[in-house]
């Protein structure tokens, strides 16, 4: 009986201590010491991630990697060309709608990317080595070669957490490149995402490229327009349903990424 009281008191001490720390942390009182601690510990985690990534990812010189890279470049060019054509057309129409985008891109190294089965399943989020001291804010978009990677959901002084667009908590408004049909893409927790809320009258088909609609606010927070989300791989159109649905897959292999870019403004 004495032993039970003993471990109960030890438990209570640490539980209350943890609760106090948790409450203080929630209100932001411990962000500075946490940042310092993380700065001290992150090289170890970064080394483990780099080592694991090196051994688990396929060779960079392999044909598949090269083809994937070329494919990403081609899609990027197609999107850029399409946007330019539309801008050109808008200029012809009495300078109607032109938006000059000057992205401020901040390169960031991925120091951790926990996934269910390392090296096989997609990571759920990234920890990057840039924080509020580098002008990163919660809500900033994170990209790689005009492909959307995700959004900054937490940031402290030196580090940030990026929630990937495949995460179930992630959703964004999108449009198709071909017909400008709009919809909503939601993460599934796997490589595929769900395209939903597309009107039955809209024309969407397999292989359509999906782009962000853009939801940046005046401070530059949010997702810029015309970033590549992925490619439509299946369409589910049932007359009985209110909306069309589909499955989208990103052009990016999140496992092989080591550097990403944070869009810190316009």
């Amino acid at each position: 009986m004495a032993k039970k009281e003993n471990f109960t008191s030890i438990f209570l001490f640490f539980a209350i201590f943890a609760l106090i720390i948790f409450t203080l942390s929630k209100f932001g009182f411990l962000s500075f010491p946490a940042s310092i601690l993380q700065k001290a510990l992150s090289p170890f985690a970064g080394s483990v991630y780099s080592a694991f990534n090196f051994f688990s990812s396929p060779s960079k010189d392999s044909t598949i990697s090269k083809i994937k890279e070329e494919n990403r470049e081609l899609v990027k060019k197609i999107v850029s060309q399409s946007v330019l054509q539309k801008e050109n057309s808008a200029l012809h129409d009495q300078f109607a709608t032109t938006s000059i985008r000057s992205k401020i891109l901040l390169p960031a190294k991925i120091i951790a990317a926990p996934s269910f089965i390392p090296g096989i399943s997609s990571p759920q989020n990234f920890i990057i080595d840039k924080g509020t001291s580098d002008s990163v804010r919660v809500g900033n978009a994170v990209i790689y070669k005009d492909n959307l990677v995700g959004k900054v959901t937490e940031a402290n002084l030196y580090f940030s957490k990026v929630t990937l667009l495949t995460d179930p908590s992630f959703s964004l408004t999108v449009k198709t490149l071909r017909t400008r049909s709009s919809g909503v893409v939601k993460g599934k927790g796997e490589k595929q995402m769900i395209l939903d809320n597309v009107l039955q009258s809209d024309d969407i088909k397999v292989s359509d490229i999906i782009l962000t609609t853009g939801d940046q606010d005046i401070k530059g927070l949010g997702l810029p327009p015309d970033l590549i989300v992925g490619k439509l791989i299946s369409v589910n159109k049932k007359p009985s349903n209110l909306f069309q649905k589909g499955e989208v897959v990103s052009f990016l292999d999140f496992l092989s990424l080591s550097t990403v870019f944070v869009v810190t403004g316009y």
Partner: protein
Amino acid sequence: MWFFVISILILMLLQTSVTTLPLVLLFFLNTEVLSKKTWIFPISFLAGLVLDVLLLNPLGKTSLFLVIFLFIILLYDKKFDIKTFHFVFLASFIGSLIYFVAFQVSNILTQALISAIIAILSFWILIRLNRIDTKRKAGFNET
């Protein structure tokens, strides 16, 4: 002791950088089941803080979870024999499941099942490395 410290450090680094599986939780569960010592509380508290720092979680969240989880395990020890594979499987499955819900990890059922299998395997390895009386209690038939 060195084995314990090095294992915890390695598992913490793996959990923060490459996998979402709660390896630290599973290791603490096995250690608690085998040793039943109270020094596990301060160690789990500190390990939880390090995990929170590296995963950018609010500080104290993992510590609180680990401390409560290990306390419940010790409470069970008063009523049941916890040095069994059944208990380790159930405790790791339920513990992982709650952990995944609390930390918003996807594929919770599959991941919890994998976690439980890892816990069972590591429990078996720890018993093999450990004492004979533990083996007997866990259901091994030594001849």
